[in-house]
């Protein structure tokens, strides 16, 4: 019995429905089994904020992303692809520095063994120039792609500095969904939460309700996002929303403190709260098993 089967058994035992969350390193199922089961896995990294400088928050700001790349490259079996859910770089008013940071980021992630790497912007990348520099380096702000029976929709809720998807993109989304069968397996990748997680902390999308309304027509939809720098899971109807950790700094749980602030670095627990995740997708059953991985000291 391979590890994939072990997780399925755990899923049944836990009775959690759409996902099961396991900590620690896993051993991948073999390639042949992947094809047979139509399952695959990919890695989600988020909020790398390349260019950030704050020794009290992350004294290894120049090394954290590189450690994550090395960790992914060190996995026993390589993922089918890697996706970054926004805030690739730390924002700056300086047009040249913004582009320098994007170029440096692109150079670092070119070191992945896996060559399919998907990107989307966060507000740090795209809000000050409405995505101009981002598009020069990483392409479209929103797009779709398909992989092994799953339809991925990348939504941009950041290039509008008011955190809106906007009518034009919303119409594009609806047109795309109309072309999909009702039972289609759909994964939405975006930066901000589409629901009102903590509007006072700017953890929301202005017209997220309209996006969710459009997605509700399909029974097999899962949303993966970033922005809040921590693992978080939420349901809006049948749609599961899963936030990923950051690779630069952690933030407190929504509403847990009066004022949102970066969590300082812990010398006794370096990289605490930072990490990335692997997502095992089982297209046939529309299940997404999420495995949160810490960032080792490397």
């Amino acid at each position, binding site marked *: 019995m391979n590890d994939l089967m072990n997780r399925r058994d755990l899923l049944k035992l836990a009775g959690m429905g759409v996902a099961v969350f396991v900590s620690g390193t896993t051993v991948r199922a073999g390639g042949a089994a992947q094809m047979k089961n139509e399952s695959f896995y990919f890695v989600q990294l988020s909020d790398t904020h390349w260019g950030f400088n704050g020794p009290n928050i992350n004294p290894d700001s120049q090394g954290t992303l590189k450690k994550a790349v090395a960790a992914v490259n060190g996995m026993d079996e390589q993922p089918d692809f890697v996706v970054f859910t926004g805030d690739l770089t*730390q*924002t*700056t*008013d300086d047009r040249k520095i913004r582009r320098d940071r994007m170029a440096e980021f692109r150079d670092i992630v070119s070191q992945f063994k896996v060559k399919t790497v998907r990107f989307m912007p966060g*507000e*740090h990348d795209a*809000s*000050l120039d409405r995505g101009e520099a981002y598009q020069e380096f990483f392409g479209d702000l929103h797009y779709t792609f398909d992989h092994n029976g799953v339809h991925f929709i990348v939504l941009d809720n*950041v290039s509008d*500095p*008011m*955190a809106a998807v906007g009518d034009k993109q919303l119409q594009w989304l609806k047109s795309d969904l109309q072309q999909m069968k009702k039972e289609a397996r759909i994964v939405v990748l975006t930066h901000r939460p589409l629901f009102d997680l903590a*509007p*006072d*902390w*700017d953890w929301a999308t202005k017209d997220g309700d309209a996006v969710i309304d459009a997605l509700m027509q399909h029974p097999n939809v899962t949303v993966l996002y970033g922005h809040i720098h921590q693992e978080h899971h939420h349901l809006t109807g049948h749609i599961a929303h899963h936030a990923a950790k950051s690779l630069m700094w952690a933030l407190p749980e929504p509403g847990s403190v*009066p*004022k*949102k*602030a970066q969590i300082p670095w812990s010398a006794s627990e370096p990289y605490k709260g930072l990490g990335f995740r692997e997502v095992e997708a089982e297209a046939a059953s529309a299940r997404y098993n999420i495995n949160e991985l810490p960032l080792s000291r490397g």
Partner: protein
Amino acid sequence: MKNVMIFLIAASVGYLHQESVLRSSTGKAQSGEQTIRISASTFEFTPSEITVKKGVPIVLELISRDRHHGFKLAEFHLRADIEPGGTEKIRFIPDKTGTFTFFCDVFCGGGHEDMSGILKVVE
């Protein structure tokens, strides 16, 4: 030339002040409106903490000193865009006591996440 500029600026400020006074002297001002001016700049509101009385009508006068900012006070369903060179006015009556956060909801740069303030509503 410099003196002319100073005069023009002073005249403009005087006009704005007069406009504010005129507005305050009519309509709701008669029922005891309290006017509070809040200045937005990267990445803070000044003042960042304001205290008002429950039931007393409030006029918030919002200005930006540098770039496009937003003002959102979700608990009272209030928001405004604040552009340099203009004054946005928001009228409301605080109908509940407590401490409420207002924040900039237009991404404005590296300190955007810290750009917030507190409204205290007391009896």
